[in-house]
């Protein structure tokens, strides 16, 4: 390992994290049946070898529930992060390229969206879509774009000043072609990092609105639901109901955040010096 420089290490860590997350996402799908299975002879068990995460008041296996919830979180996170990143890309490019009026209007919209405390906005959008799975996905996906689209807008404005883009415009290359050939490829690193850095936020907000009761139905073993249920049993000392699912969620978010951060550093030209 010593001979490895930090870029190689980053690459390795990145791949490991990706594989781990995929594994959790897949495992959760297969465990869904087990997560719902009740067994009243095995209820309220503290963690043991058989039930590493313990069982709840209906005798359900907390490990299976946690994994299922994580899997759901990861899938929702990936979906919403992708949607919001694409929205951010479109809005950022539009603001930068379609003239000052469009720019002013879109910037105003970004300010507007950022003015509402995030969790309130997610609640509002999720209400508009009738709560449930759609509500959560819409709420998270439609509320995350402003910060990334600001970054993209700034980047495009900078690219437009680049000599080769100005030359292409002067030469009469159609704008659409300029965007596709000269601007989009250069946005890719920023966009990719932005995309991955959206995951942690998306997952955390998904868990939060679900916790508050705006999202998935109580039957669905989402992490937010599990933690919300566990709250009622906290005072009776059933610590495992809240500790393990939450810890697992933090780990997943950390993995995503770490991946995004590493990718950002890898793609950052300044990191070439070390």
């Amino acid at each position, binding site marked *: 390992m010593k001979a490895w420089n930090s870029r190689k290490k980053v690459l390795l860590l990145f791949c490991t994290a990706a594989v781990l997350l995929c594994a959790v996402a897949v495992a959760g799908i297969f465990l869904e049946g087990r997560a719902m299975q009740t067994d009243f002879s095995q209820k309220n068990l503290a963690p043991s070898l058989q039930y590493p995460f313990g069982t709840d008041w209906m005798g359900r296996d907390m490990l299976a529930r946690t994994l299922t919830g994580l899997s759901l979180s990861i899938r929702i996170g990936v979906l919403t992060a992708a949607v919001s990143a694409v929205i951010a890309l479109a809005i950022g490019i539009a603001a930068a390229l379609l003239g000052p009026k469009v720019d002013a209007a879109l910037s105003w919209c970004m300010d507007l969206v950022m003015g509402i405390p995030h969790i309130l906005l997610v609640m509002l959008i999720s209400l508009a879509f009738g709560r449930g799975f759609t509500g959560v996905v819409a709420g998270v996906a439609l509320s995350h774009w402003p910060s990334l689209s600001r970054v993209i807008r700034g980047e495009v404005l900078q690219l437009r000043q680049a000599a080769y883009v100005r030359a292409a415009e002067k030469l009469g290359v159609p704008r659409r072609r300029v965007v596709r050939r000269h601007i989009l490829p250069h946005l890719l690193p920023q966009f990719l990092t932005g995309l991955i850095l959206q995951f942690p936020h998306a997952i955390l907000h998904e868990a939060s609105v679900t916790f508050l009761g705006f999202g998935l139905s109580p039957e669905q073993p989402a992490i937010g639901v599990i933690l919300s249920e566990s709250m009622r049993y906290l*005072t009776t000392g059933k610590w495992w109901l809240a500790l393990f699912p939450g810890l697992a969620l933090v780990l997943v978010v950390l993995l995503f955040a770490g991946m995004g951060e590493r990718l950002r550093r890898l793609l950052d030209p300044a990191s070439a010096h070390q």
Partner: protein
Amino acid sequence: MKHRLQFAGKKLLRMVLLLLGVSLAAFLLMSLSPLDPLQTNVGQTALGSMSPEQIEKLQDYWGMNTPLAERYLGWLSDALHGDFGVSLLYRQPVLQIIGQRLANSLGLLFVAWVLSGVLGLALGVTAGCFRGRLPDRLIRGYCLLISSTPAFWLALLLLMVFSVWLGWLPVGLSVPIGVEVGSITLADRLYHAILPALTLSITGVANIALHTREKMIDVMESEYVLFARARGESRRSIVLRHGLRNVALPAITLQFASISEIIGGSVLVEEVFSYPGLGQVAVDAGLGSDLPLLLGITVVTAAIVFAGNLIADLLYGVVDPKIRRGAARS
């Protein structure tokens, strides 16, 4: 001076327009909701046993029979006269509820805001000037961990440790249960606010510290710090004389931008600690499709956030010599 007033005026106008936009957006979102407020609040079975006239009356009460534009304009003209309507759930004027709850939350929010700002700045500056060394790694690790932790889970953890396990602090509510309103002391209130405030501060620190760290690194790599080193200034002197001075401006922006985050966090934290503040009532209003109340809360919190941004902009003008002197000259 005239220049500055113009600047403030422009910002204020923008803020009013943004608030209008927020109210319209929130109103539209809530009206779009396919959820039937009658079913949510009255219940399917109760509805089934009601006469059509009763249901009609209820629908009027929940505002389901008036066209959208008319309802919004009606709300807006009332709101401009200081009447935000009556909460459907609590049957009290919206502003009165918001006022009460905000009074409960304000101390909590303020303490968390100041604590997270001061701690975040200190940690960020420390990490930035020890870049890559142990203090930096510890602080960065802490920030990464905290920003990956849902605020409500952290609240649950603190609750488990300090209230259930150690028994040092109360489980919830802003006041002891079963005590008369008159006999609640300030100490009681403080005692019940410790954990929520702590949770909010802990989570708020991460963002501010990480951003301050980036700024501090920029400063430490700047040419003027290089020159200060070339002139034999000690590290301590560089951090105190140049570092803090140049981090101060972005810190103002960060600090006021964090208001939104603190309010958002309070929604979750108050829910966990059953703290009867603005955040908790927002959740109730949302779950109960209480349009006037949720709308009022959204507009009021957005107003607080925009006011924070405005203050940051104005403070910038006072602190930044380029704006201060530049404006004085023109």
